[in-house]
């Protein structure tokens, strides 16, 4: 996956008839005509906004009044002491703590399970992956219904175990775990698929050789399978960290950040600052803090994978 990100060297190409041909002018322009249509949308809708966002973050622009002035790094300074921003950041980390380990470990266990030579395993793979293709807002609405305090099926099942009437989404302490549970159900299939691809790349002879040498299932898994899976595991961890850090949709549908502000996450904080209070300058600073975190994660990933190559 990462190998691709590094620019492959343009295959030592002999004069593929660019400048030296008689119709040199046309050919030199030609490549640009291929890139140009894409480049227009790329600059307008991706690169431009990414750069503009930083400039906006240096102003106190108000979306409602349509005015503002340059304030330097004031927005960033304010963020550092804003208790609500701090709270949203901590709650995002809490959400990640609840989901990332579960998503990674469960993803791995499920991949190992559906990789066994068992009848019907492909049906099971399909079933586990299926929730992932469902849209976020539908996931939110389904779980909103299942987690309903009085008539939800989730509390009914719990009542069979003697646990009664947990107000999942209206109790500030229960809401985030409930959203985490929803998220795990929704996205664990994705991690399973990536792990499964990694497992299938391991030559079966290696594991068989270990078994012939008398190693048990668990020893084989721990000393052969897991080490060989390390690069894949790393990719899964990174992707899961990034995706959970950017969580928004299901929370918007299920609690809107509440009750109180107990499930407000960082992207939600940004969303409300920008589109409810119209503080787009301030909200842009939040966006850039988010981006900074993502860049740091990417740098860690590069370093780790580079070191892995050397080993």
């Amino acid at each position, binding site marked *: 996956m990462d190998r691709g990100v590094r620019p*492959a060297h*343009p*295959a030592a*190409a002999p004069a593929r008839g*660019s400048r030296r041909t008689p119709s040199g002018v046309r050919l030199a322009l030609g490549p640009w005509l*291929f890139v140009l*249509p*894409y480049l227009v*949308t*790329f600059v*307008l*809708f*991706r690169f*431009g*906004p*990414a750069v*503009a*966002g930083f400039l906006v973050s240096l102003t106190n622009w108000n979306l409602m009044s349509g005015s503002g002035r340059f304030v330097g790094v004031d927005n960033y300074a304010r963020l550092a002491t804003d208790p609500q921003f701090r709270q949203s950041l901590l709650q995002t980390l809490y959400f990640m703590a609840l989901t990332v380990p579960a998503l990674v470990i469960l993803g791995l266990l499920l991949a190992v*399970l559906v990789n066994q030579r*068992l009848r*019907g395993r492909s*049906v*099971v793979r399909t*079933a*586990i992956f*299926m*929730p*992932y*293709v*469902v*849209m*976020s*807002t*539908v996931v939110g*609405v389904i779980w*909103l*219904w*299942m987690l*309903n305090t009085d*008539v939800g099926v989730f509390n*009914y099942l719990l009542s069979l175990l003697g646990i009664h009437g947990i107000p999942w989404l209206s109790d500030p302490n229960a809401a985030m775990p409930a959203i985490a549970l929803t998220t795990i*159900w929704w*996205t664990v299939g*994705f991690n399973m*698929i*990536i792990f499964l691809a990694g497992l299938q790349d391991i030559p079966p002879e290696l594991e068989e050789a270990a078994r012939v040498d008398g190693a048990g299932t668990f020893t084989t898994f721990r000393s052969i399978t897991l080490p060989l899976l390390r690069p894949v595991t790393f990719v899964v961890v990174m*992707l899961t960290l990034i*995706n959970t850090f950017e969580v*928004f949709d299901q929370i*918007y*549908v299920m609690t*809107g950040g509440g009750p109180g502000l107990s499930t407000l996450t960082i992207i939600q904080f*940004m*969303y409300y600052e*920008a*589109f409810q209070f119209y503080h*787009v300058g301030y909200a842009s600073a939040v*966006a*850039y803090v988010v981006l900074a975190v*993502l860049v740091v994660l990417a740098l860690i990933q590069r370093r780790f994978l580079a070191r892995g190559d050397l080993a």
Partner: protein
Amino acid sequence: MTDHSKTARTILWRTFLYLGLAAVTLVALFPLFWMVSSALRPEGQILAYPPRWLPATWTLENFAYILGRFAFARWWLNSIVAAGVSTALVLLLDSLAAYAFARLHFAGQRVLYLVVLSMLLVPIQVTIIPLYMLFAQVHLLDSLPAVLLPTTANVTGVFLLTQFFRNLPGELLDAARIDGASDLRIWWHIVLPLSRPVLSSVAIITVVSSWNSFLWPLLVAYSDASRTLPVGIAQFFGGESGVSGSAPQFGPAMAAACLATAPVIVAFLVLQRSFVRGVALSGLKG
């Protein structure tokens, strides 16, 4: 004796594994089953406690209700148009650009490609504020073009296609060039037909991410004329608002959920292989 206990252990272990398979399948599918089962029962049975697994009487009244009371068909159509147009544009623009990046040479090519790839790091969440200001500036808010245009600045597609085009056999393209074919002809007649698998992956990724996309449409689609399914569902059936807010109406909400989910599930079941490959390639988030 040892052989005997070994077989017994194997049988026990396999039984355990099969139980595991059954359990995870049940957990994975139950919420979807519950969505369908709830959508098909009358409102009275929705609120019955303890819940019954299947409706006592089956009904389509929830479906009739959402189709009659909301512009649901319109949201559906908007979602289809947005997904269709953005996918067509992405395939066209990305494959043209990828052809230039992979098989042509021009000044600044390397740098440009790196700049494009660097945007893989920047998620939509980071760019929505300036994007919103841009569309407000040109008075395109609350329109389908606003919903779908930003999706055409797709980086994953360019990346996947460029990688694939680079690995195409050079002799074939060179031969065509010697025969006097223009780059446009080579792109259309040779490169694209050879690239069906990766093109279908990119198409699937784009359709699904457009169909499921929420945050951006939430900002720029606020009337029925431009609202897409995820937005309509969140606004009318989500926790904060309207239908389920004061008096919960979960039946209609589940019917809406069924109608919004059915096309993706069907497409997924039919195209499973390319679906999984596409999604795994891109790390796409619903």
